[in-house]
Structures are given as C-alpha cells and as structure tokens.
C-alpha cells in the first residue's frame, strides 16, 4: 500500500510538472487583447474566517451589512438571506425587527384582493431592488446585477498548478472574498495601450469574465460612515463587504469548522485505538 501511494504521488507529480510548462504557455497572451480572464489574479488576503479555526468578525460583518444596505442593495438583491439571520451578526431580536421594518415587502392579497406593501418582519428575506429580471436589466444597460446571496461562493479565479494542490494543505477556500475585494479595488486602472473598451463598460483587470464590466466603481473612499472608528477607505470597505458576503453565502461556516475540529479529534483518537487493536490481533500472525 505504501508503495502504491508513493507510486501514485510520483506519477501524479511527474505528469503535473511536465504540463506546467504547457500551462504557462497557455497563460501567455497579448496584453492589448487578452483572451483569458481575469487579466490579473486577485491577491490573497488574511481573513478571520480562513483556516481550521476560522470565525467571522461580527464587527466586520456589521460594517459589511451597512455597505450592502447603503450601496450595493440599490442594484443587487440578496434573495436567500432572511432578516432573522442578522442576529448572527450580534444584533438583538429588537434591533433585527427594527432593521426589517425599514424595508417594505408585498403583503398577501387583502380582503378586496389587492396587494399592498407592508413593513418587513424578521422572517422576510431582503427584498429585491427590482420587481423582475427584465426591470433590472433595463435599468442597468442590459446586464442584470447578480444576486448577492451566494456570490462569495459563485466566483473564484482558477488557481492553476501547483497552487490548486497546495490549497488542499493550506485549506484555501477564500477565492470568493479575495476575488470580490480585488474587483472592488481594481477599478480606475488605465487599460493597456491599444485596448478597446466597449462603450458603457468599465475596465477592470480583475473581472473574471472579460476586460471590462457594466458596473462602474461602486465604492469610493469616505462613502459610507462607520460608527466604530474603522478607517473609511476603499480598501477597508472592500474587505468588509467581502467578509459580509462570505457570511451571506456560508452562514454555518463557524459551526462547520468547530464541528470539524471535534470530528477530527474523535477520528484521530479512534484511528489510534483501532490501530492498537489491529497490532494486538495480528501480533501472533506473520503477514
């Protein structure tokens, strides 16, 4: 078995090495008219929720929520997230109730069969800024702003060899937040000479699907006022909203990692016991 594993590892590594050259060749592209996106890979940031003991920073999530509410939610829905889950950000039940009441959602038909709006309650989800996808597209030059509920898990830049192997050991799962942060801070760079930017789009070398996107730079320094004294800079905003979106996409992350630690401890101890039992049972049999 040891031989088989060693053989497997050697075989895998050999082929991977042989092909990393081909991979690099593929990555090389014309600076003015690139064919592979994103043009630049996102930087890896330090996130509190990374690694085996990762946890969300509630203060940061609250700041992120403020950014979502004041900036992003003008165009981006977050359909899958109910107000009640905001208690996980450290708010009290009353605070969540008050927060929800700031939104209006369509009520069930009344006795006359009319649908009127009512104040949202904690059981409601964040309402969409547009009544339907067509309205969203019409208001945004044909591009529907994506829903934000899962965006932090639905975007990740391909890691490539050998990083994707190293990720198994470093437990890198933060491609989504890294990407969002890179995108938000990546506006304002000047495109390389000779590059044609389509009308109504904005160059961003970190955009995953093309050289430019329909959204203009959404966040600027000083745009959102923080109550906790954190720096009101684009870099800080971008980190906070990315962390918040990671929470929105994976609300049970902390519970998952905590459970995982207990499971791992159990399994390792159990493996030890079974191994001792195995040694004992096989002690008098040559094999």
């Amino acid at each position, binding site marked *: 078995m040891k031989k088989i594993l060693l*053989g497997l590892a050697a075989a895998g590594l050999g*082929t991977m090495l042989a092909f990393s050259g081909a991979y690099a060749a*593929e990555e090389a592209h014309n600076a003015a008219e690139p064919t592979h996106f994103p043009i630049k890979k996102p930087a890896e940031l330090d996130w509190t929720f990374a690694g085996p003991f990762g946890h969300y920073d509630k203060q940061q999530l609250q700041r992120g929520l403020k950014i979502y509410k004041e900036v992003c939610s003008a165009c981006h829905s977050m359909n899958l997230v109910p107000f009640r889950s905001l208690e996980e950000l450290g708010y009290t039940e009353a605070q969540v109730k008050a927060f929800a009441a700031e939104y209006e959602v369509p009520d069930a038909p009344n006795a006359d069969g009319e649908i009127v709006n009512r104040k949202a309650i904690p059981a409601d989800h964040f309402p969409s800024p547009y009544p339907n996808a067509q309205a969203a597209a019409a208001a945004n030059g044909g591009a529907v702003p994506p829903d934000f509920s899962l965006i932090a*898990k639905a975007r990740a830049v391909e890691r490539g060899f050998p990083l994707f192997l190293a990720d198994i050991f470093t437990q890198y799962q933060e491609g989504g937040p890294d990407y969002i942060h890179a995108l938000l801070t990546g506006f304002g760079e000047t495109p390389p000479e000779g590059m044609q930017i389509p009308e109504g789009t904005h160059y961003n070398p970190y955009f995953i*699907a093309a050289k430019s996107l329909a959204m203009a730079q959404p966040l600027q320094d000083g745009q959102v006022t923080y109550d906790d004294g954190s720096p009101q800079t684009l870099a800080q905003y971008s980190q906070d909203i990315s962390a918040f979106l990671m929470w929105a996409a994976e609300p049970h992350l902390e519970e998952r990692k905590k*459970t995982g630690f207990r499971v791992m401890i159990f*399994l390792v101890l159990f*493996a030890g016991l079974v191994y001792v*039992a195995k040694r004992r049972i096989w002690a008098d049999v040559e*094999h």
Partner: protein
Amino acid sequence: MSGGHSSYTPNTGIEKWIDARLPLPRLMYDSFVAYPVPRNLNYAYAFGGILALMLVSQILTGVVLAMHYAADTGLAFTSVEKIMRDVNSGWLLRYLHSNGASMFFLAVYVHIFRGLYYGSYKAPRELLWILGVIILLLMMATAFMGYVLPWGQMSFWGATVITGFFTAFPIIGDPIQQLLLGGFAVDNPTLNRFFSLHYLLPFMIAGVVVLHVWALHVTGQTNPTGIEVKSKTDTVAFTPYATVKDAFGLVLFFILFAYFVFYLPNYMGHPDNYIQADSLKTPAHIVPEWYFLPFYAMLRAITFNIGPINSKLGGVLIMFGSIAILFIVPWLDTSKVRSAVYRPWYKLFFWVFVANAIMLGWLGSRPAEGLYTLFSQVGTAYYFGFFVVLMPLLGLIETPRRLPNSITEAVLAKNKSGGQPAGIAAAPETKG
C-alpha cells in the same frame, strides 16, 4: 474455497430455532466471521469495505436530503440552499453527500487500480470483475444525474453537453436524447426523471454489490502474490483479522473524507454551480466533475474524422469504449502470472497507465485547444494501447520473476529477509 461446509454451530435455543427456519445468522457467520482470507492482504484491499460504507453513507444522507429537496426547475436551486441554511445540520448532510460522491470515486479508482495491479480480474474471477465494472457504470450514471439536481449552471450545462453525446449516433441518437431529456432540451421533465433515477440507481448498485460480494466469496480473495490459497496456513479468519485491518483503513479514509467535508467542502465543486441554471447563459468552460475528467479528455481528443465516423461520434465511441474495454480485460491479459509484483515490465507499464490517467484528468479540465489536444490524443492512445496491445503482448514475451510456492512461504520469506539469508523461509507444512 468457501463452497464447503459451514462451521457455524448454534448454541442457544433461539439460535437453533432460527437456524432451522431461516439460516441468516449462519450465512452472516460464514461470510463475515469464519470466512477465510489470505493472511498477506495489504491496505489496498481495504477499499472494498470502504466502498460498501460509502454507498451506505450516500444512501443515508441522500434519503434525508430527498425529504427537503424539490425536483422542480423553479424550486430546486432554492430548496438546496434551504437545506444549506435552514434545515438542521442540512449543511452537513449536503456537504457529506456532495463530497461523499467524490470520495466514493476516489475509493473506486484505487479499488480498480488495485485490481489491475494484482491481476484480480484473471480466472476464475472474471464475473467478479465484470460485476465491478457494472457497478462503476451505475455509479457514473448516478453521479451524473445527482450533479444535475442542485440545478446550478454546471448542472444544467453538464446535462446539456452529456445528453448531447447521444445525438452523435445516427438514426437512434435523437430519439435516445429525447427520451433521456423528456423533451427537446434540458428542462423540468429532465430534472424530474433524473431525480427519480438518482434515487433508484443506488439501490441497483446495492443489488449488484451483493452479487459482487457473492462472487468474491465463491472464488475467494486474491492477494498481493497472486497465488491461490493452497492450505489452511495461507489464510486467517475474516473476523477479527480482516475486520480490524479494514476498520483501520476505513477510519483513515474517513479522516480524509471529514477533512474535505469540514474544511474544504467546495474544493471539488465548481463555483458556477452556485449560480442558478440559466438556459440563456453558457458558462465560459463547461467542465464535468473531476472523476469524469479523464473520460472527458478522451472524448475531446478525437478531433478528426475516421472514414464514415465523424469526430463527434468518434469521440463518443472512444469515451464509451474506454469503459466498455474494461469488460474484456480478463481475456486481454495473456499472462500466466497474476500479480504485477512478479511482472517487472507489466509493473512499469501499469504505473505509466496510472500517470497517464491522472494526466488525462488534468487535460480534461483544460480547454480543448493547441497542445492540450495533442497530449490528450497521446494519452488516449496509451489508455487503449495498454489494454489492447500491452496486456496481450506482455503476457507472451515477459519473463516473470520466480514465484513462491505458497502464500505462507512468501510471507515468511518477506519477514525473514531483513538480516537473514533468504530461501530458508518456507514453512514445512506447505512443502509439496
């Protein structure tokens, strides 16, 4: 080997009462306690047990997931997210199930490679091997349809691409595709029938597993030497010896499984599958799950027409052929020696085959262009060449190393060889 008489003796009254009416305890005792297994099995032989447990795990998590899942194009995506967010431990069930599929395939590939290495498919175990290939096929169908159920972008477009393969066949192709889809494109009927079949097939797998284990218990297990069991000293009782060894391998495997579930739950998945299916937006690269990538690479390697067969049909035939060829492996291998341990050339080409399979997997994840296509073609040629040319040829021209007389002799020789001169090891009772 096990066809002989039973060593089960009912002791208590109730055991005797049951044994006279339905000897199920006797069957269990003879199959999983007294059943003799070769004493020299290594941990590569633990994967059969691991696979049985993975099947159980997938069925258990799957049954609970099905209680919360809605097979409707308008509801499927949100119902899965509801499981992830609102169902008690739903995130755990769902990650266990999705990562469990990957672990299932990891284990089955090791299991198959082990069979190829030690020649487990050779007579008299041909049917055992063929049943295993049938299980692999059923697993592939189950996994493919399961991947469609969350109704993400990769679900939808993967289903579109894979069902599209069938249109490559002349005349019968289009009707087959329409039967699979329940219409002309992937839509609600497709999702419904895939859900139904995804629930059905695992139980068919379980049925074939019973036959697989039955066939195994008739012929007995192979072992790293490839020599058949000759005497009682060659074997040990399944319980406690194999049970505890398999249990240790199983716990180690579960550590790996848990590591992915709790720390890297989305590592094996594709980010696009967290975007709801949209029939108007095609993803930049449509890639299947990692366990299908080698076959996907072979499909795309055929970029040329061969006579009346166009490149599309050629690719599909190659892809189906890459599994179909496994059915005749027992008759392709002409070697008189079973295990690669005693076959230096086969051993070398076997490891090249493994490396080639990994390379094809990586190529399957790359876009089909330039050098990648060329490498895929080379890899495909080796994949088939290994079975069609090397297997028959090596058996005829290779000079195998000297085989020990028995399993016991091999075991004792191995344990004595550290320090003491070899060759004095044979156990006296196995001579002659």
